């Protein structure tokens, strides 16, 4: 099997790095955990704000198994990757099978550090590499929103991963190599709209998780940020969304972008199919116009990159 050699190569790399990184990589979880976010004046306001965080973060697309008529946010959707098949977990507030027992600090640790409440590393199929930038306020509001959703009793299905990827311990190494926790830092030299767009694209919207190509260890290739990939999720092609005039969306106007994110219509009148339609239906169509404009502002200001 062709993949086996690569698996061993990856394992060899991982093991050789493990010795060196083991000492420095695992950070004490408590030291990184966020302080309790400000939950707002009333729980109702936090839930309302959390709804927009939830939509911008696109939680539904992965955590609802729509194809098999799964209950909202009860997980079970299969994510087929070169590293095996992941089954997304139940994030309804069911106490036994969901996240009903999670405190806001537990959610913050998951989003900011990729750690479960028990301190286990999550696979980066869960895009904490992007969510680590979330503000504490947004995490708190999201927590309030999630806890207000109907609980669904559905036991999580174990991932189906070949060796060596089923060893969660290796994730510590991966995180040491490719993950650095840290909140989004606005660029003071840029307008508020640009910074809001950067936060929506790079952090909440985690656009790069699909639109940025990945290396052999599943890490994002930052020099080709948002330039698309021939091998996206489920082995499908994902388009270049940098302003490159030929390969990207350089010919799209701001209203082309905002209208697409609101409705799913491409500038030529075609209508989105595939994974992006889920992002639009469950996510960007719910955003305020100002947020869609911010996304357009930021995308149009990215460095244009050719490819894929």
């Amino acid at each position, binding site marked *: 099997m062709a993949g086996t050699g690569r698996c061993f190569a990856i394992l060899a790399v991982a093991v050789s790095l493990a010795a060196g990184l083991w000492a420095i990589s695992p950070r004490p979880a408590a030291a990184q955990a966020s302080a309790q976010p400000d939950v707002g004046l009333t729980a109702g306001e936090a839930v309302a704000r959390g709804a927009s965080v939830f939509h911008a973060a696109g939680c539904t697309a992965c955590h609802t198994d729509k194809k098999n008529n799964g209950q909202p946010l009860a997980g079970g959707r299969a994510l087929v990757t070169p590293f095996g098949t992941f089954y997304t977990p139940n994030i309804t507030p069911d106490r036994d099978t969901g996240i009903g027992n999670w405190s806001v600090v537990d959610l913050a640790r998951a989003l900011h550090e990729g750690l479960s409440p028990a301190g286990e590393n999550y696979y980066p199929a869960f895009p904490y590499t992007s969510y680590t930038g979330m503000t504490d306020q947004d995490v708190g509001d999201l927590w309030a929103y999630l806890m207000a959703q109907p609980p669904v009793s559905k036991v999580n299905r174990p991932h189906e991963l070949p060796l060596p990827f089923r060893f969660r311990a290796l994730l510590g190494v991966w995180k040491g190599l490719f993950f650095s926790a840290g909140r989004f830092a606005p660029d003071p030299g840029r307008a508020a709209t640009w910074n809001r767009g950067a936060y929506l694209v790079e952090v909440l919207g985690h656009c790069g998780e699909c639109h940025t190509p990945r290396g052999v260890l599943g890490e994002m290739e930052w020099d080709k940020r948002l330039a698309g990939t021939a091998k996206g999720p489920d082995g499908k092609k994902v388009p270049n969304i940098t302003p490159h005039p030929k390969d990207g969306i350089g010919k799209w106007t701001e209203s082309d972008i905002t209208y697409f994110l609101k409705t*799913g219509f491409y500038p030529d009148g075609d*209508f989105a199919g595939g994974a992006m339609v889920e992002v639009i239906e469950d996510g960007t169509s719910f955003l305020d116009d100002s947020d869609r404009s911010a996304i357009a502002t930021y995308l149009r200001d990215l460095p244009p990159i050719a490819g894929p």
Partner: protein
Amino acid sequence: MNKISIAFAAGLLVAAVTPAFAVDEPLNVIKYRQNVMKSIGAHTGAIAGVVKGEVSFAGDVEAHARSINAMSMLLGHLFPKGTDNAAFQETRALPAIWEEMGKFDAAMKGLQQESAKLIDVAQGGDMAAIGAQLENLGKACGGCHKPYRAEKQ
């Protein structure tokens, strides 16, 4: 040459030429279908230009909506068996269409209904309502594109 041999030669010519121009051959149907679909997309894109405020031609929306509605009525006979992307790489039509013909028909009817509604709304002239109905039309487009059209490769 006598008449019989002329007729024979003509017959041979027809036999030789016919396969290249076979009426309703799958590839020809696929090309025709794509032209119909593109025309729907073009009218939709034109309406979107009005809704986005890029152009002021609000009075044109009804004509575009009528065109979309007329084209939507043709779709029923544009999906003969054997015109899927498993048979021809020129199309993105998934074989699921023919496995779920009932659902597919219902999804096509959705486009007919939503485009008919868009004609009505366009006559009213309320731009917000036109925008909202265009979004409903988009959902009808997605009703087929999501389950039955492969992504671009």
